[in-house]
Every structure is written in C-alpha cells, then in structure tokens.
C-alpha cells in the first residue's frame, strides 16, 4: 500500500480485446452486476445503521444533529492565529482547531523531511561514527511510543524553562519562560511589545511550550521513518549506476544529485506520502499536552454539547479531507518524478 487516498474504478480485465457477444463479455456483465449489487447492499446497510442509530437516540431522549455548530461555543482556545473568542459559534472554534492542526503539521512535515533526509543519507555514510549515530537515532525514535516522546518533550521544556515570573530576557522585547518564547508582533496597526509583569508575560506574540513540544515531537519521530524511506530509496538504485557516474568523471556529490536521487525519488515519494499522512494524523496526540488542535477543540465541544457522534464525525471528515488533500498533492509530485511512458 504505497499510495494513499486516491480511489480508482474497478477495471473489468476480462473484457479486453473481446467482441460484444463473446462469452467472456457476458462474464464481464455479470461481474459488473455483482459489483453493483454489492454497492447497493453496502449503501442499504449504512442507511439502516444510520436510521437505527437515530431512532435509538430519539427513543432515549438524546438530541442529535449539527444545529449546535451555530450556537455560541462558550469556551476559550488558548492559542491561535485566527481571532477567536468564546462568544463565537462552535463552527468557528472547529476552524480555529483545524488551523492549529495545520499550523503544527506543515512545519512538522518540512522539518521531518529535512532532518529525515539528512539522517537517511548519514546511514549510508562511509564515516563509521555518523553511521552509528544515525542508526541509533532511527532505532531509538522509531521504537518509543510517540505519546511518550511528546510527554517527554513537553515536561522537559516546562521543567527546564525559567518561571514566567522571572522570565529570561534574550533581547529587548524577547522573553523566554515557561509561557514560551514571547516576541514583539504587529498587532492592530502597531508593533506590540511583550511586557514582563510580576506574574507573567503579556502582549506581543508567543510560541508556547505546547506548540514547540508537539512540533519537535512529531518532526523528530517522523524523521526516523523518513530516514528509513530515504535510505531504502537510495539503496534501490543499483550500484552500477554510481560506478558508471563516477567513471564518467562526476564527483560523488554530483552523482548523488544527478544520478541517484532522481531515480531514488521514484521509490521514496509514494511511501513519503504515507509518512506525511501519519504525521498529520498523529498531531491529534497533541491533546495530551494541552495544544488546542482540532481533536482538543472537538473534545471540548463534545463535552459542552454531548453530541458525541457529530463531533467525532467532524474530526473524521476533517482528517479525511486533510489526508486526501495531502495525497492529491503528493500524487501530482509523484507523477512528475515517476518514469514517463512505462507502466
């Protein structure tokens, strides 16, 4: 399973090259009929499940439906790039949660790719120390549960940083503390400077320890998988290619850049898509360390309204959408690096 997302229509292989009346085309018609029946049965089963569920919910006096999305949310969200306050409706809160998920997933993917590629190449290095270190990195990060790593990053950050009441001033207007990294930010037509008060830092913008822990945790964890993908991709290129490149007078670096990588990418890109999808989905673990991602917001909404079905459905729909979007982008890129003409 190398490609995520895309669905392709079933292709009746038996009908190829046959006339319309041949027995084999009749087999094909029967095959299509079967598929149609199966689809119908599936739709009927889902419809039954939905109606059964709704009937039961009604019977037990449980309110259902998505109407709550337009009611005021009533809770605050700790950090966001979009403006939000508790009097705004639930759907707005969901959008803010989604923005927070994207805000951690996109830089996470970039970081994981850079770090993973470097480590993957280091695993193939002739330098013994580099090879050993990168192998150790991959084995360690890959084999410890991500949730544990996230908690470790988070508690390390919050323990090590100085208390918010005596924040470390790195530069004028830049403070580092348990509240995160605060810096001046363009706000309402003017630069707003963070100010240290007796209890905490206020004003300006800040990168919170929650965000940092999720970002670092996801990036370093996924980098281990990316490294393995890159290593496998490079090793899939036959060594004869490298020898040929070197004998043509290319430097090792040039041979990597112009000969090995273009061929390796064909192997790397499809499984890299999976890593990117995983990173995005894994960001849902952020809820454990207080980062207000989509799942965190949906959890809160679920509890304020009791609409478990609806909130879970929103989470599923959004992650599905994100995943399909990611795979669509990656499939386009894959088409560019794939072999032309061949199958």
């Amino acid at each position: 399973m190398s490609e995520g997302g895309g669905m392709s229509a079933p292709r009746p292989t038996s009908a190829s090259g046959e006339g319309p009346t041949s027995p084999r085309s009749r087999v094909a018609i029967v095959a299509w009929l079967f598929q149609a029946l199966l689809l119908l049965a599936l739709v009927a089963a889902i419809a039954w499940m939905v109606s059964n569920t709704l009937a039961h919910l009604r019977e037990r006096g449980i309110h259902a439906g998505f109407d709550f999305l337009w009611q005021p949310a009533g809770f605050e969200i700790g950090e966001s790039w979009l403006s939000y306050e508790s009097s705004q409706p639930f759907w707005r809160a969901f959008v803010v949660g989604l923005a927070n998920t994207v805000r951690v997933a996109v830089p996470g993917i970039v970081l994981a790719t850079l770090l993973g590629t470097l480590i993957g190449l280091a695993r193939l290095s002739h330098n013994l120390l580099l090879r050993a270190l990168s192998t150790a990195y991959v084995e360690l990060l890959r084999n410890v549960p991500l949730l544990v790593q996230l908690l470790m990053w988070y508690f390390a950050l919050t323990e090590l940083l100085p208390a918010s009441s005596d924040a470390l001033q790195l530069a004028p207007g830049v403070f580092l503390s348990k509240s995160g990294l605060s810096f001046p930010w363009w706000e309402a037509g003017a630069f707003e400077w963070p100010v240290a008060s007796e209890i905490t830092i206020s004003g300006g913008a800040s990168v919170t320890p929650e965000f940092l822990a999720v970002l670092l945790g996801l990036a370093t964890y996924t980098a281990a998988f990316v490294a393995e993908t890159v290593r496998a991709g490079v090793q899939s290129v036959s060594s004869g290619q490298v020898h040929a490149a070197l004998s043509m007078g290319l430097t090792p670096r040039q041979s990597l850049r112009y000969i090995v990588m273009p061929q390796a990418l064909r192997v790397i890109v499809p499984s890299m898509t999976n890593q990117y999808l995983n990173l995005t989905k894994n960001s849902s673990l952020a809820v454990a360390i207080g980062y207000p991602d989509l799942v965190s917001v949906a959890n809160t909404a679920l509890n304020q309204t009791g609409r478990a079905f609806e909130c879970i459905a929103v989470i599923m729909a959004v992650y599905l959408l994100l995943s399909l979007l990611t795979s669509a982008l990656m499939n386009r890129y894959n088409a560019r690096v794939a072999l032309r003409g061949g199958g």
Partner: protein
Amino acid sequence: MSRFPFRLAAALLAFVLAAPAFAGKTLDTIKQRGTINCGVSTGVAGFSAPDSQGNWSGLDADTCHALAAAVLGDAKKVNFVPLNAQQRFAALQSGEVDLLARNTTWTLTRDASLGFHFTTVTYYDGQGFLVPKKLKITSPKQLKNAEVCVQSGTTNEKNVADYFRAQNIKVKTVVFEGFEASFKAFFAGRCQAYTTDVSGLAGLRNKEAKNPDDYVILPDLISKEPLGPLVRRGDDEWFADVKWVIYALIEAEENGLTQANVDEQKANSKDPVVQRILGTSEDTGKLLGLDKDWAYRAIKAVGNYGEIFERNVGPKSVLKLPRGANNLWSKGGLIYAPPVR
C-alpha cells in the same frame, strides 16, 4: 497510530447496533448479573479513587457501595468502571454502566438533552482557583493575562471563559485532555493558576503538591457545581432506587442512625421514623422493588451521609474540607431529603 478512545468507540457502536429498548429493566438486569456497573472517575481523591489493591473509596464510590448493599445485599458487588471526562456520558447512554457516580455537575444541558436524569445532589461544590503562594494573588481578578491550566471535558472550561469575560479580564487557558497531565503542568509552573471544583483543588493541593503550603486555594468561587449521580432516562424504577438509597442515608444522619448503632436501633428503637427507615414497621422496600431491609443494609455498609462525608472529604480526611453547604438543612446546610414514608 491515531489514538481513539476505545470505550467511546464501543459506546457509539452500541448505538449503531443496539437492540431496541431496555427501559424498565435495569434493576432486573442488575439482580441477574449480581453486580452494579458503576461509572466513576479515573481517580479523584475523596470522590472515587482506587487504592493499591484496587479497592475504590470515596464519596461517589460509597454511593455505589450503598446501592449494592441495598439492591444486592452485598456492598462489595460493585463493578467500578473508570471513565474519563469525555467517555462518561457515552458510557451511560449506551448502557455500559448502570449509573454515573463521577463528580458530575448537574446542568440543564446535561439533564435535558443527553437522555439522563440527575438523581439528587450528594455534594454542593463550586469552582475555584489554586495558585502558588509566592505570586501573592488573593483574588481571581488579579489573574490578568495569566495562564490557567484546566482539564477538558468539564464544566470548568466554560465557567472560566464566562467568568473572565464578565469581568472583562483576558486570561489564557491551557487545556489538557488528562487530569494527570493538567495538574502536572501546573505544578511544573506552566500556569499561574489551576482551576476546577474546590473539592478537586483540595485533593490536588493536599495529595499531589510537593509542599501543600506553597499553594493556596482562593476564597472566591466562580460557579455553582452541584455534584450527584445520574441514570439513563426511561427507567423510572431504577431512578427511584438510586434516589431513595441516597435519601435514606441522609435521613439516617438526621435521625441519628450510624453504622455503629444501626443494629441496636433496629432491635430496640421505638421511634416510628427510625422503624420505618429500618423496615421494622412498614415495608417501604416493596414499593422500590427491593426487600424491607434495603435501607438498613445501606447504612450498615457505609454509614449515614455524615459519616460518608467525614470519612472521605471531611476535616479528618486528606481533603480537609469543611462541612459548609453540605451540612444537613437543620444545621444550616443544603442537604435535605424527602421523608422515607
């Protein structure tokens, strides 16, 4: 490895596939099964928390023990199901638990739209703030621009937003899914304040803080949090049983019945009220689908309401909470039970 709460998924699945209506059958199911499935917290000191042997104790746990004693004749026949804040409602809706005794606040939304009945209030609480002493904060109004740690899935999250919006003060909430993670972050210094019900704050301060004296609970309360057990709608018999077992414990305190003297009172008391409670004159149990000793067994198993309070959350317990609003109505509190008659 997308983490999906298994119990929530199971509960939702139960709706999808459930066989029709089981209204009115809870008591029969419990008697047949031989245990009560009691939904509790994953560990809130004084309310429901397991010890090292896995025995649950606390005010909520004792409600379940009393019910088991009244219904099944053995206080130990309780199957405690620990539920986090997110799972709890789905677990009750789907029938995974028979009742939810999980320091849950009685609100309109929960009572009217989730298919539940709140039975009665067993603890009158209010939301407050725990702050480090060294910040010298004496009122929540001084928390301007501060960060407040809170657990998600609670009424606390919404109260804190409402309160500070009304006061026109900006604070930042840091919301954690797990109770553990939320207070650990607070004690690590991530937030300037932690907020939950005062009973919870007392438990945190006295049990989890390295040095309890470094922290203070602010005297201001920002909300009413009436806590009590709830049951599914559609089974009025079971609803009545839960209510009346709790009422009997309150009546017991009012009439001086204790775990220690209940046997002697049952044998000798000439007081008609006591005789009625203990089933020596009238058989009130028949009306509830129970036998006549139901209240006697509940009192014998866990003591009266006052004893339960003292043992789990009172001044001599680890929480050291004053009786306050949770005293009997006759002693200036709010605890009041309709008569067992």
